[in-house]
């Protein structure tokens, strides 16, 4: 009996379950509507190649949104980090030096965002909108508006490590993205920094009176997101072996969509990283999937919109509360409650 309770309770608390179901249903639909494509392994390898940069960005953005902030500047970091890497690589023929400097560039952008948001108290949507334009501007200016090919990065170790093909087929970046998802899950849910982020997003004043250094935590958060976005930019640049000054443009809305359909609320205070993981794969699979079904390219956006709306509605309607309510009900069907054990309504603390 108690084991039963435990299992159902666990189901209710399973993170990202609704959106995981959406992803599964979506793939099942694709398998039936486009069997020639979705029963082979190639399409999945292609998703594992294209989704990771977006997923990595979405992981960082989940933290930002959990803290009750927003960051619109990460697409510019994708471009800036790509430029720093290619330029340093071309000029000094070092891969790891280029890698570290690219991440450092992301940290600088994040630090400046942090200064604006945490120190000067500029609302993050305004601050990062401005820095987004600024850093794209900087990148285009110093790159002279030109793209840079780095085909000679292909034989290097860094290329093999981050975007190589395991067993000749499996893209390494998918494992990096998966590993980062696990790492960030532990940081958000099991580390004191993650707890501070959640409390700040929930109510910054509570966090402050409970002794959390709100300003420093916000700084750290933006720096972290800058570094994450730079890493995503590196995955992108390494995969396509070319830097182009507008890279990352067009990623803002899909990445935000991935976070929101994953179940993270814009209100802050809670982040669902498992949902973000599934959400990124949904967003990244839709276009190819819809095209493969043969209904025509003009349908892509319409179907994307429908799936996003359905996911968001699902999260709101049967979100975490709904699921735990469901599991409570299921528990009651299994083990009828004694008549006097009423659900809490009169409070439990009468001394």
């Amino acid at each position, binding site marked *: 009996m108690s084991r039963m309770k435990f299992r159902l309770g666990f189901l209710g608390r399973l993170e990202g379950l609704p959106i995981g179901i959406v992803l599964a249903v979506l793939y099942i639909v694709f398998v039936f509507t486009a069997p020639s494509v979705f029963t082979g392994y190639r399409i999945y390898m292609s998703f594992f190649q294209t989704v990771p940069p977006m997923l990595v960005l979405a992981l960082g953005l989940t933290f930002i949104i959990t803290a009750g902030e927003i960051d619109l500047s990460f697409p510019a970091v994708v471009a800036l980090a790509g430029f720093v890497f290619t330029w340093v690589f071309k000029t000094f023929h070092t891969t790891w030096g280029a890698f570290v400097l690219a991440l450092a560039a992301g940290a600088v952008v994040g630090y400046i965002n942090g200064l604006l948001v945490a120190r000067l108290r500029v609302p993050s949507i305004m601050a990062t909108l401005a820095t987004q334009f600024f850093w794209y501007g900087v990148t285009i200016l110093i790159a002279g508006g030109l793209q840079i090919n780095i085909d000679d990065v292909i034989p290097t170790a860094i290329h093999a490590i981050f975007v190589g093909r395991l067993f000749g087929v499996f893209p390494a970046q998918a494992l990096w993205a998966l590993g980062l998802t696990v790492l960030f899950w532990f940081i958000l849910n099991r580390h004191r920094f993650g707890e501070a982020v959640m409390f700040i997003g929930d109510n910054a004043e509570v966090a402050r009176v409970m002794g959390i250094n709100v300003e420093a935590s916000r700084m750290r958060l933006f720096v972290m997101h800058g570094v994450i976005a730079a890493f995503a930019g590196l995955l992108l640049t390494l995969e396509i072996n070319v830097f182009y000054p507008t890279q990352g443009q067009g990623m803002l809305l899909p990445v935000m969509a991935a976070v929101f359909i994953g179940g993270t609320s814009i209100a802050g205070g809670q982040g669902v990283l498992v949902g973000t993981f599934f959400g990124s794969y949904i967003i990244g699979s839709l276009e190819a999937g819809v095209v493969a079904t043969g209904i025509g390219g003009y349908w892509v956006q319409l179907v994307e919109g429908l799936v996003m709306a359905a996911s968001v509605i699902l999260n709101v309607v049967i979100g975490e509360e709904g699921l735990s309510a469901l599991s409570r009900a299921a528990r009651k069907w299994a083990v009828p409650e004694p008549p006097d*054990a009423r659900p809490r309504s009169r409070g439990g603390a009468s001394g």
Partner: protein
Amino acid sequence: MAETLKDQQALRLVNIEKYFGSVCALKNINLEVDRNEIVGLIGDNGAGKSTLVKILTGVYPPTSGDLYIGNHKVDPRTYSVTQAYALGIETVYQDKSLGEKQALWRNFFIGREIVHRFGFINVRKEKEIAREIMVNTIGFRGRGITVDSRASKLSGGERQGVAIGRAMHFEADLIILDEPTVALSLKEVRKVLNFVHKIKEAGKASIYISHNIADVYEIADRFIVIDRGEIVAGIQKAEISLKELDEFLLEYSHGLKDKAGQ
């Protein structure tokens, strides 16, 4: 040494003043709280109660004056919320004690997590202790509230119970309750007052701040009346009945007007 306190004092303020720019919020505050004494702090809106609380809890530094907590003289320049915790001062606020969307076990340990290496939280241990506090210290039993419940599921009185239980767990010597019963139903107020009685039973000191004279009268051993940033009266409970206290406060506010008119 002049700085050493008599052992029975939990807190002593000497000539504390606080200015915000040129606005004087607190003037000449001299206040002592004995160990295991509950002091009721009474005053109107804007009298300076909240400012005083924020100075005691390390949120703001005072402009001048000395602050002694237990046997320590506190340096106002380095005094912070964390140091207040370390010296055994805990605060229960009207409405900002708990993170609404967070599980209760997180709310118990926020800012003072029990951690493994690298700052990862020992969830098992935190939950165990939180459960212990809920059952033994504050007496939550059954009723569908567990350490995994979100704070938003609790009634107002229960939330204050959690905050008070948290304060008692962390071995506070002095618990400051800043208007803990505002916006609660009568029944919930009763619960909170019961929690405050537990503070006294546990041998701790407390400063209880409220608008409600009847509540303060029930709880406190001594009353401090504060007005326009100054302490204007200190009365032992034994010296006065609730009715007299009420009348005194009324008369006082009228008397003040008369004086101002002179």
